[in-house]
Structures are given as structure tokens and as C-alpha cells.
């Protein structure tokens, strides 16, 4: 899942970094790279690990190895929140890109 979207990040979102750098928000400076593409890539990585954790717990629930019911519900809740977050970051990025594409020359 991660492989196609970093391809998108290479396509020219690095240009957005000037905007996020100008804003100099604490959230942007706390990440390793302040540009938008690396923020998107790192949030995709964390989404991947959250989803695989929820998947493991779902397997445990199916095989009867699950120790704690709340564990699985919390993990799936976290996975759905993280998915929602990454998707909305992606949507904002695409709409910014479209906005620039519509610019009159």
C-alpha cells in the first residue's frame, strides 16, 4: 500500500514545502523533514503499522487467542482514525495541487 503513494509524493509536492516552511508551525518543525511529502510518507508508515497491529488482533480474535477484548476494539478504532487522518491529509494535498493546476497562465 505504501509503494504507490510515495510515488505521488515525488511528483512535485516538494514545492509545497515553501508554504509549510513559511508558516513554521510547531507540528511541521517537530517532524524530521519539514516538507509536506515526508509528513505524508511518515503518516503512511504509522498507518501501516497501526493497521497491521489491528490485523494481528483480528486474527487472534478469530482463532480464540485474544487475551483482551478491549485491546482489539481499541486497535481497530485507532486504525480507522489513522486511516481517516491519512486520507484527509491526502485529500488536502490533492486539492492544493488541483488549485495550482487551475492557475491561469
Amino acid at each position: 500500500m505504501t509503494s504507490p503513494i510515495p510515488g505521488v509524493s515525488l511528483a512535485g509536492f516538494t514545492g509545497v514545502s515553501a508554504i509549510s516552511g513559511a508558516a513554521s508551525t510547531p507540528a511541521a518543525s517537530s517532524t524530521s523533514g519539514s516538507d509536506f511529502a515526508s509528513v505524508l510518507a511518515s503518516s503512511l508508515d504509522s498507518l501501516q503499522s497501526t493497521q497491521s497491529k489491528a490485523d494481528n488482533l483480528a486474527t487472534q480474535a478469530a482463532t480464540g487467542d485474544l487475551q483482551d477484548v478491549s485491546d482489539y476494539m481499541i486497535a481497530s478504532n485507532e486504525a480507522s482514525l489513522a486511516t481517516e487522518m491519512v486520507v484527509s491529509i491526502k485529500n488536502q494535498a490533492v486539492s492544493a495541487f488541483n488549485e495550482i493546476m487551475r492557475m491561469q497562465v
Partner: protein
Amino acid sequence: MALFDALSIAGSGMLAHRKWLDAVSDNISNINTPSRTSEDAFKERMVDVQAVNYGQGDGGVKVAGVTFGSGEGRVVYEPDNPLADANGNVKYPDIDLGDQMAELMMAQRGYQANATVIDRATDAYKAALQLGKG
């Protein structure tokens, strides 16, 4: 995950209260278990909990261990019990049922409170994700 910390912290609270519920149910289920006067009676189980890196690090609570109550018990005269000694006495655990019921209520309410925290935190995070969509 650092982003949705409130969920995992409340999850640790749910786990600790579930262990407490387990201990209380163990105590109540053995409240009428007799034993020989030469042996220890069933020992009450008490869960020790501990804060995790309070104010720094992960936060939350963890179960540090289990403490056992006294095995002394109370001696009851029951000559027809197969476990009775020469004087007709057996031992019953010295656990107070009223005490256990109070602990049961506290553990159950604590569990519910942590579940509510997870619900509310999810709502809050969802509200944050709606920012800028209007």
C-alpha cells in the same frame, strides 16, 4: 502510537480494572471453599497497580503484581465435613463479602469510565479531522 495516546492510555486503565475484576471474582468464587486446619485457607488476592512514567513517557497504569492476604482463615466447627480434623474443625477463608462487593462496584465503574474515555477521545479526534472540510 504517539498520535492517539488517549486511546492506549485509557486501554491500559481498562486492562488494570479487568485484572481487578478477575481478582475480585476469584475471591468471591472461593469465599466458601473449606480447607484442612493444618493447611492455609484460600488467600485473598489483591491487585497492585502503578502509574507508568507519570507526566512523562507513555503514561497510563500497569499491574505491578498481586499481593496475597492472610491464609490464617477462620476456624469453623463442621464435624461432618470430609476435611474436618480430629476436633471436627475446618478452615474457611477470612474474606468479607461486603468488602468484595464494594471492590466489585469500584472495579466495574472504573472499567466503564475508561471505556467512556475511549469513546469521547474518538469523538474528539474525529472532530479534529473534520477541520477545514466545511
